[in-house]
């Protein structure tokens, strides 16, 4: 997978890797392949945490880390490469320290950036294989296209709540991510982990499936997960396998590709551009939490509706709010007086925006969305309300 001259192992490394060295499937030859190998981890979060730790322990010679985020307390239930002492630090620094502690023989490259169309080719070109541990569709399509264009395997994993997917994309004969999903879902249709939650141990399982495939590809042993999509359901404790095929009409890896260089992936995924008037536009139906507080204090005649789920209501709530989960609005609309002003809120403002649209369709004339949800309420109005 690379052209560097073979290196040898030090006495310390021979002892460290002894359980590998006595296995014929790895042996000295395999361990040197691992030492000569370079892997880029895109993201050092849920999937990147176990990946970074185990790949370092296994003796990968050089690991690149791409992340621009900082460690938050809400990361710690799954991102085991970071600890409580690291809250507020850059994930890159925290991950690099953990890796260096596990195996000081690993060379670590840190990229304190968001992977973009401008920098991705240059960064990825330095590695034998790329592991996608990101959390958003634009970066997933970007990583895919880069891997196809550079002819580098893309070890893919993705998680949601208690379900995971894993496969290997972009090998010579195998399918790519676009063969599986030609287009991303429109924004808002599929909730993110921040909205939908994730079982803390799930990325451990999925990340280690990815680590296993990376090690196998480097060693050239076993049956790689190419052309197969593994689906893992943690609640049922069931693994299933679906067949994936390369699509001859795929725009990037097909027989007549139309995508031959990187594109604007935010636009491809239907996200608003970072600049321009659209992003700054304030919806006239929006109302700030401070204004809602003032309305409550004045005793204004309006209904505050919490459209989150009952289990979220139990974590924290705003007094006087009526709980009607988003999915039940159509059924329970008769509980609301349509002649009154209705203010909807959720956790961050996304679901309540949908609730506002639904209520308008149902004939409500005066409906407003509390911006930023109960998290903004905690920031601006009542800091005793816990954030989650």
């Amino acid at each position, binding site marked *: 997978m690379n052209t560097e001259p073979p290196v040898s192992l030090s006495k310390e490394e021979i002892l460290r890797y002894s359980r590998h060295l006595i296995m014929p499937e790895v042996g000295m030859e395999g361990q040197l392949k691992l030492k000569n190998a370079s892997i880029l981890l895109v993201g050092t979060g849920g999937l990147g945490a176990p990946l970074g730790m185990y790949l370092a322990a296994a003796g990968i010679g050089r690991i690149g880390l791409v992340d621009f985020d900082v460690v938050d307390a809400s990361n710690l239930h799954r991102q085991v490469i970071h600890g409580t002492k690291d809250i507020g630090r850059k994930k890159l620094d925290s991950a690099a320290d953990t890796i260096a502690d596990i195996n000081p023989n690993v060379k670590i490259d840190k990229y304190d950036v968001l992977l973009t169309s401008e920098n991705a080719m240059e960064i990825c070109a330095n590695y034998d294989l790329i592991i996608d541990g*990101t959390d958003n569709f634009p970066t997933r399509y970007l990583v895919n296209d880069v891997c196809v264009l550079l002819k580098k395997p893309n070890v893919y994993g993705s998680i949601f709540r208690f379900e995971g997917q894993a496969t290997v994309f972009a090998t010579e004969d195998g399918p790519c991510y676009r063969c599986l999903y030609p287009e991303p879902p429109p924004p808002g249709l599929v909730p993110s982990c921040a909205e939908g939650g994730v079982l803390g141990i799930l990325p451990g399982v999925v990340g280690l499936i990815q680590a296993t495939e990376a090690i196998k590809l480097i060693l050239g042993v076993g049956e790689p997960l190419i052309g197969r999509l593994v689906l893992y359901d943690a609640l049922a404790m069931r693994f299933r396998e679906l*067949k994936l*095929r390369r699509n001859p009409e795929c725009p990037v890896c097909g027989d007549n590709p139309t995508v031959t260089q990187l594109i604007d992936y935010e636009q491809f995924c239907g996200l608003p551009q970072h600049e321009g008037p659209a992003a700054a536009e304030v919806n006239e139906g929006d109302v700030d939490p401070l204004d809602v507080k003032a309305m409550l204090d004045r005793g204004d005649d309006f209904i505050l509706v919490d459209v989150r789920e009952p289990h979220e209501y139990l974590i924290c709530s705003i007094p006087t709010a009526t709980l009607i989960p988003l999915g039940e609005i159509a059924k329970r609309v008769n509980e609301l007086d349509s002649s009154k002003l209705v203010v909807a809120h959720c956790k961050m403002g996304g679901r309540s925006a949908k609730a506002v649209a639904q209520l308008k369709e149902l004939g409500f004339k005066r409906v407003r969305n509390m911006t930023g949800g109960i998290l903004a309420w905690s920031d601006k109005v009542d800091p005793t309300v816990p954030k989650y």
Partner: protein
Amino acid sequence: MAKVLIPTPLRQFADKKDSVELDGATVAEVMTALTAQFPTLRKQLFTDEGKLRSFVNVYLNDEDIRYLQKDATAVKAGDTLSIVPSIAGGAQ
């Protein structure tokens, strides 16, 4: 009867069920029966023109129906249809 497996992100539109048994001789018939039972699933799975959305794949047993006869693929009793939407989570 074929078994339809409903993935986690879509269970909220299907009375929180993880699978349902439905009748139908083709994939299209089974999917119609599914969205008749759970009308709010229709918008998640199909475009306004009634086409399966491009970020949702349907598998008959372990084969992608795009590489079989798509909607017209025959379904036998005991077959499993899996709905597999794209999910992006990983780092957050």
